[in-house]
């Protein structure tokens, strides 16, 4: 019984650690930073969407990957 629990814990640890390396490092965003990866090609549309999200949902950013000066939004 104890051995079964050990295997279960080991399995959970292995499965959970698989998520630890998710995400792209800041210097690996070359493809994400391309204009083609924007949600919309029209800058005015993007600005309007951004404004709607900001005013209706109190959230901003996340429309692109290269802006903001630090590449982190």
């Amino acid at each position, binding site marked *: 019984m104890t051995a079964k629990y050990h295997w279960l814990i080991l399995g959970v640890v292995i499965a959970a650690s698989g998520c630890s390396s998710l995400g792209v*490092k*800041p*210097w*690996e*965003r*070359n493809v994400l*930073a*391309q204009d083609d990866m924007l949600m919309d090609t029209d800058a005015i549309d993007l600005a309007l969407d951004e404004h709607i999200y900001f005013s209706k949902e109190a959230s901003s950013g996340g429309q692109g990957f*290269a*802006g*903001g*000066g*630090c*590449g*982190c939004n």
Partner: protein
Amino acid sequence: MKKLLLLLLLVISPVKAEIYDINRLDLKSHQGKVVYLDFWASWCKPCKESFPWMNSLLAKYPADSFTIITINLDAETDAMHRFLGKVKADFDIYHDASGQIAEQFEIEGMPTSYLIDRSGKVVKKHIGFYTKHTGKYEREIEELL
């Protein structure tokens, strides 16, 4: 006349940046100087904006007490060369295609820069580049000079 033309050519031609492999980076060899260490990539728009400012720093501060070292993090060498064909760089560039040094410095955003004092100690870290903050960056450098 020929000498004059040659002199004129030297003055107006952009200073070519030297590109080295990251394994040749030796920060200790710059001890005694204030070092502005900058991590950049060709696809990063704020990085491009920082280049003219970094060039101006080299012209502003004496070479025996201040230097700029930049580390390019493009995975593709061609992308870096294409960028440097368009944007003037007066400082040395070390190419870290695998991001090994970026990993060591725990880069959180692009560009990231470090200000290193004469003893080789990192005293400031800037994440991102903002033209409106260049005055502040320069004051930080001048405090160390």
